[in-house]
């Protein structure tokens, strides 16, 4: 199996808990014989690199340096994420089984790759704009929510860490409950469940 993880943070760039989590996940995936790539952001350490854990990273920077907010920053970074993922895809003889996307930042790239190349994706949700923004509904928050909605709509499966989060996604975005899988990162069966989820998605075949 060949998998690409999309995450806006990955060591050495650590913003929150996601960097540590995706790094642990990559290590475990490699240990379970999954060919693992991570496409992530870095301001200057760009390009393809081999990681100590056996995964490969492809770091991209934003070609547009001046921004007026996180939205424009994200929406111009996604094309570089697509370029990196497309490079992996074409070099691997067009064989990428799935993309696992962490939070909303790189949903646009995943949606575009799915529609263009038929690569299915899993949307792994760490947090939601509704909780981060405490219910604020400015055009800025709405835009982020619309990207989250797009992610839920286009993803093959949604991966969350708790039952509470699953119910919140059902409540806020009306996503069918069976589309969402709860996998606790602290459970002993964690990596086994992640691999099972991936296998379900891959067995579903090409997206669309």
């Amino acid at each position, binding site marked *: 199996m060949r998998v690409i993880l999309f995450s806006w943070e990955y060591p050495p760039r650590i913003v929150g808990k996601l960097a540590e989590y995706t790094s642990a996940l990559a290590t475990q995936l490699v240990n379970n014989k999954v060919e693992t790539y991570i496409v992530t952001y870095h301001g200057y350490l760009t390009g393809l690199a081999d990681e100590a854990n056996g995964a490969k990273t492809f770091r991209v920077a934003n070609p547009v340096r001046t921004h007026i907010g996180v939205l424009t920053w994200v929406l111009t970074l996604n094309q570089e994420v697509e370029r990196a993922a497309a490079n992996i895809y074409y070099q691997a003889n067009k064989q990428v089984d799935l993309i696992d996307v962490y939070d909303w930042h790189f949903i*646009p790239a995943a949606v*575009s790759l799915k529609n263009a190349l038929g690569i299915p994706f899993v949307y792994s949700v760490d947090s939601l704009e509704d909780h981060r923004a405490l219910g604020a509904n400015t055009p800025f928050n709405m835009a982020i929510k619309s990207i989250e909605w797009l992610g839920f709509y286009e993803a093959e499966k949604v991966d969350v860490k708790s039952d509470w989060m699953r119910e919140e996604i059902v409540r806020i975005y009306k996503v069918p409950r069976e589309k969402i899988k709860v996998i606790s990162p602290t459970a002993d069966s964690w990596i086994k469940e992640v691999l099972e989820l991936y296998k379900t998605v891959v067995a579903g075949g090409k997206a669309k």
Partner: protein
Amino acid sequence: MSQALSVMMLSWEFPPRVIGGISPHVYFLSKSLVKNGVKVYVVTCDFPGAPAHESVDGVEVYRIDSYKNPSPDFATWVYLMNLNMQKEAAALAAKLSDKIDVFHAHDWLVATAGIGLKHVFRKPLLVTMHSTEIGRRDGVHTATEKMISETEAWLTYEAWKVICCSQYMVSHVKWAFGLPDDKLVMVPNGVNTQVYEDVQGQDCASFRLKFALPEEKNVLFVGRLVYEKGAHVLINAIPKIVDKVNAKFVIVGSGYMKDQLSNIVKSMGLEHKVMFTGFVDEETLRRLQSCADVSVVPSLFEPFGIVALEAMAAKSAVVVSDTGGLGEIVDHDVTGVKVYPNNTESLAWGITKVLTDEKYRNSLRENAYKRIQEKYDWDKIAKQTKRIYEGVLGEYSKSFWA
């Protein structure tokens, strides 16, 4: 190529959505490419009442959901719209029976969609730069303007070829984004002569009476009444012209300088010689252009100068200021008269010369019309554009992407 060349055009406007000059440009270019055997798909923003998919003169037009939630600001909306555009264009390109050979983007307004499509499908991207943020704002001053300008730079970097509509724009874009010479190519904007043929033959004498006395020559200005269009230069030249020839000056258009301009006219005691029409409908405009003795374009800055081309297509003699793209359109003493920009003496001299010498005027009109047919004909422009696509595909076929 066994199969017809197929291109996907990305444009934020396409008729009936008309905001600026890109919409008619993409429409005429696409339609003329189809006539030259190119398969054209246009992906553009939706518009109330226009269908999501239709075939327009052989062009397959797809209108996407242009993101209708409230947006924080215009630039952010552009990027959000591009997210939808890319998603729908990707789905379309993936399911089409004929593969897309090239993507052709128009301005930064579709930059991120075009760049993303290029990479996921690994097909060449071309861009037509109709204008630049630096040119529009006379430099970049705010974070938004810088961001847009950097997006334009990125788009031209990702493009295989950058098309500009005038030599002036070629050198401007080359300077603005530091591009190599061989990446830039000039293809002029076209003008549709058919619409003028439709109004010609209609009676000018009675139509002109709505604007001027029978014995007055007609001098026409068409343009927004803003500083860079130079209507004030024309108004200041009027006394020098009416000294020598009896003429009426018809000013078509509106803008922030309108009140100021009519006050100047009043203070000069020239109200009987100048008529401000405001906006006029398409047909009236075409008839005005067809019936004018001279059309004047006194701009101080002009990247292309489509209004001069339209006047030439309407078989009107033209007097233009020698600036930007405007100076390239007119061949002095052959297809029109070029005068010094922002110079009332020079402008008065040019207009007077055209109005007082009928033989000269007629030769300018004939030559100008011929030049329009030779150089600014959409069919010729489509052929040139097709050759650019073929050249790019030839280079592409030798690359590791092919």
